[in-house]
């Protein structure tokens, strides 16, 4: 069976090479049969990799411990979910998973464009399959998932496998990696379309229209992946943090940042035909950073709390990255004339320039994170001493950038396209600006000495008001025309331009999340040894340790503390943080107790008992406003979904295409009539 799996992977590799070459030559020389053959190879690769994945999953589920991969990442007692998750739980399997997702995406792309974009599709396919060649090369020759255990020439099996780390046996951890992979891999598609139109010098913005939803979905997957990781860290790791600027976390953040920049700057290209080079650079950077992130998590070049094996595949990644960067740079430089801008910037006070600065800041933050992440590697290369930087560096740089970005989120919609006169600015800025400033003054006056926190809350209020105003004013204007009430008008407004108003919902979500992030400035923590019945005080809470209970289940030994929380003498809740000790892996984990509330979370970790066994070691934390982050996350998902729904306008056909959001000003309606017949 393992032979069949290996064969499928090897064959997929050969077909990927074939598809890359056939599509390239077929597109170049305009040979439709070669192009069609390349596209069929895409489907065949998907089938082969699905077969290989199926075989691996079968081996994992049935516990075929002859396979090295199964022995290393699964064991008999693991629940089915985690046995399945072992597919992407280890190096070899996760690369197969990567390749399989890419194959699935490619098949979808080829199928949905079987009639459209025929001029660029061959090149799109060859870029996709070029990437595929690299990943199938890795799993076919370097880190094969179907290697069997053997002593000498004799294939053997082990009685039971090592199993998955208990810390990772958590539902969030089972879906966190696939979400990130879906995001990482997904950016290959817009990149392929960008390169396809660049190679072909295809006029127009077709590649952006086609991949717009694709990019959004990919971005959504990546956001979910990152936030799931944050939520897991908060619930499981026991120190209450959700983000630690760990190299691996950074690796997932980097393409997310450039992807976000891309989502914004494509609007400039669609609306005004500007920033074409920039968008090419951004989408390429996003793709390359995705590959780079995959590389960083596998190669062990930076040490991290997520432990990584030193592995032989690092050099292959470096070679692939170098090759890809070389090709992209060559293509962009060679086709600079094709990417010339169709418009120029009219004024600093314009929507355009707010997009520009948004991009500048996102890019700067991306560089800062990259720089900090690679600092040990860079410093070792240049000074010979390996120096690392950690959270204080990132916080110091990223907090101001984040705040400035937040401010721009609010300012963007207030500027008009092209130019904004002082008159328009006054209309738009006055009330939100005054409200934001007033909040800052009030907060400082009432004794908030944390400057960044006061600024952040002020900005949040400013941006929040701006967004709400956008909805209200829009609904008003629409309601006047259609005679609808405020709420139905808002819904109608959103349906007519899902992208803009969905975007505003996402921005609102960001505001809510920033409120949550800002809460971290007021965290309180206390580590204390308490005897039974003893009590201590943290924030507004009086905490009393009532007792410690012990017990055992099949998998682990547990003991947990019962801690009663009182506020102003009134009983609030009993918290039961637990410690577990897993016999099989000889590892202990803690299950923290969290009391979630809108204003602050009470978070208690039972760190163990003191040496004499009489006292409980308790770590208690108060985390203000953390829940806002999770609420914001949900809202962000919702907003992105709204963005992906086609606008009502597009769904209708023919002339209704022109109805759109326009209302009033009949001169516009008249002007549009000839447009339909413009081709005459």
């Amino acid at each position: 069976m393992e032979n069949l799996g290996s064969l499928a992977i090897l064959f997929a590799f050969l077909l990927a090479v074939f598809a890359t070459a056939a599509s390239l030559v077929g597109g170049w020389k305009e040979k439709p049969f070669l192009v069609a053959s390349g596209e069929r190879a895409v489907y065949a690769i998907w089938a082969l990799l699905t077969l290989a994945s199926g075989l691996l999953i079968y081996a994992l589920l049935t516990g075929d411990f002859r396979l090295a991969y199964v022995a290393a990442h699964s064991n008999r007692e693991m629940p089915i979910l985690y046995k399945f998750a072992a597919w992407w739980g280890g190096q070899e399997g996760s690369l197969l998973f990567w390749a399989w997702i890419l194959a699935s995406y490619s098949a979808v792309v080829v199928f949905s464009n079987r009639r459209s974009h025929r001029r660029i599709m061959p090149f799109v396919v060859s870029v996709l399959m070029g990437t595929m060649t690299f990943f199938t090369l890795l799993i076919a020759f370097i880190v094969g998932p179907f290697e069997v255990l053997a002593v000498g020439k004799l294939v053997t099996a082990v009685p039971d496998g090592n199993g998955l780390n208990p810390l990772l046996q958590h539902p969030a951890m089972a879906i966190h990696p696939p979400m990130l992979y879906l995001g990482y891999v997904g950016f290959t598609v817009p990149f392929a379309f960008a390169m396809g139109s660049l190679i072909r010098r295809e006029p127009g913005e077709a590649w952006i229209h086609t991949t717009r939803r694709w990019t959004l979905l990919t971005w959504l997957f990546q956001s979910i992946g990152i936030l799931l990781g944050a939520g897991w860290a908060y619930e499981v790791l026991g120190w209450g943090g959700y983000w630690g600027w760990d190299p691996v976390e950074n690796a997932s953040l980097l393409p997310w940042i450039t992807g976000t920049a891309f989502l914004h700057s494509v609007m400039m290209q669609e609306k005004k035909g500007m920033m074409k080079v920039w968008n090419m650079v951004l989408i390429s950077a996003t793709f390359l950073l995705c590959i780079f992130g995959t590389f960083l998590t596998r190669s062990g070049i930076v040490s991290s709390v997520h432990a990584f094996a030193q592995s032989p595949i690092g050099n292959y990644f470096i070679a692939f990255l170098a090759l890809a960067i070389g090709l992209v740079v060559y293509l962009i430089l060679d086709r600079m004339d094709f990417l010339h801008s169709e418009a120029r910037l009219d004024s600093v006070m314009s929507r355009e320039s707010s997009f520009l600065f948004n991009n500048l800041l996102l890019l700067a933050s991306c560089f800062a994170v990259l720089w900090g992440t690679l600092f040990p590697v860079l410093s070792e290369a240049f000074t010979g001493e390996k120096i690392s930087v950690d959270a204080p560096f990132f916080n110091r740089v990223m907090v101001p950038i984040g705040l400035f970005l937040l401010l721009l989120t609010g300012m963007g919609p207030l500027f008009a396209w092209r130019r904004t006169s002082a008159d328009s600015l006054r209309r738009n800025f006055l009330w939100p600006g005054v409200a934001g400033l007033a909040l800052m003054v009030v907060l400082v006056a009432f004794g908030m000495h944390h400057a960044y926190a006061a600024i952040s809350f002020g900005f949040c209020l400013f941006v929040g008001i701006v967004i709400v105003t956008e909805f209200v004013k829009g609904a008003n204007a629409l309601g006047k025309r259609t005679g609808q009430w405020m709420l139905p008008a808002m819904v109608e407004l959103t349906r007519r331009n899902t992208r803009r108003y969905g975007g505003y919902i996402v921005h609102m979500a960001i505001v809510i999340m920033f409120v949550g992030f800002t809460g971290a400035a007021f965290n309180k923590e206390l580590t204390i040894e308490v005897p039974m019945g003893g009590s201590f005080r943290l924030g507004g809470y009086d905490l009393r340790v009532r007792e410690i209970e012990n017990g055992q289940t099949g998998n682990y030994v547990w003991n947990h503390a019962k801690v009663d929380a009182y506020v102003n003498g009134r009983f609030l809740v009993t918290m039961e943080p637990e410690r577990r000790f897993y016999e099989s892996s000889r590892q202990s984990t803690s299950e923290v107790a969290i009391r979630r509330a809108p204003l602050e979370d009470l978070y208690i970790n039972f760190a163990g008992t003191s040496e004499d066994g009489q006292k409980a070691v308790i770590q208690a934390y108060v985390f203000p406003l953390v829940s806002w982050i999770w609420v914001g996350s949900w809202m962000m998902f919702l907003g992105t979904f709204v963005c992906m729904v086609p606008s009502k306008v597009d769904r209708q056909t023919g002339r209704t295409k022109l109805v759109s959001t326009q209302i009033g000003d009949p001169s516009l309606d008249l002007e549009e009539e000839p447009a339909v017949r413009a081709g005459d």
Partner: protein
Amino acid sequence: MILALSIGLVVVVLLYVLVIRPQDLPFVEPHSPTGHLDERKAAIYENLRDANFEFLMGKLSPDDYQATKADLQQELNAVNVEIQTVASKLDSGKAKAAAPKSSNAKAQAPTSTPAVSESVAGTQRFVCGNCGASFPLPLKFCGECGSKMDEARA
């Protein structure tokens, strides 16, 4: 057993990838040489509508709105002129191509296949069965009345 399976798999996949009959080639939608210009025009219209809407929302002062509108209309004119240039070039190219041994038709009409450029640049019109409007391109839906067009030609 495994061997037979493997050989079967290889053969099936190879046949699937390599044997392609002419009728398996996908039907290709005709490529419009002015497509990207139409796109640009649609974008400008959208910008106009946006500016109008922002004016109605009270975000734009009347002066700003008029200035922006004038700019956009100017852009629109430029694009229209460009479309006409491309169209007239195509027509003349077509005329030359009709003459025997004329070879520069393809160079002037950069389309994917000759067959396609024929249908685009030709004098063929695609007429809506419902309202009678005619178009130079085969449309799925009529651009005038929105009813479905079944590629009827006149």
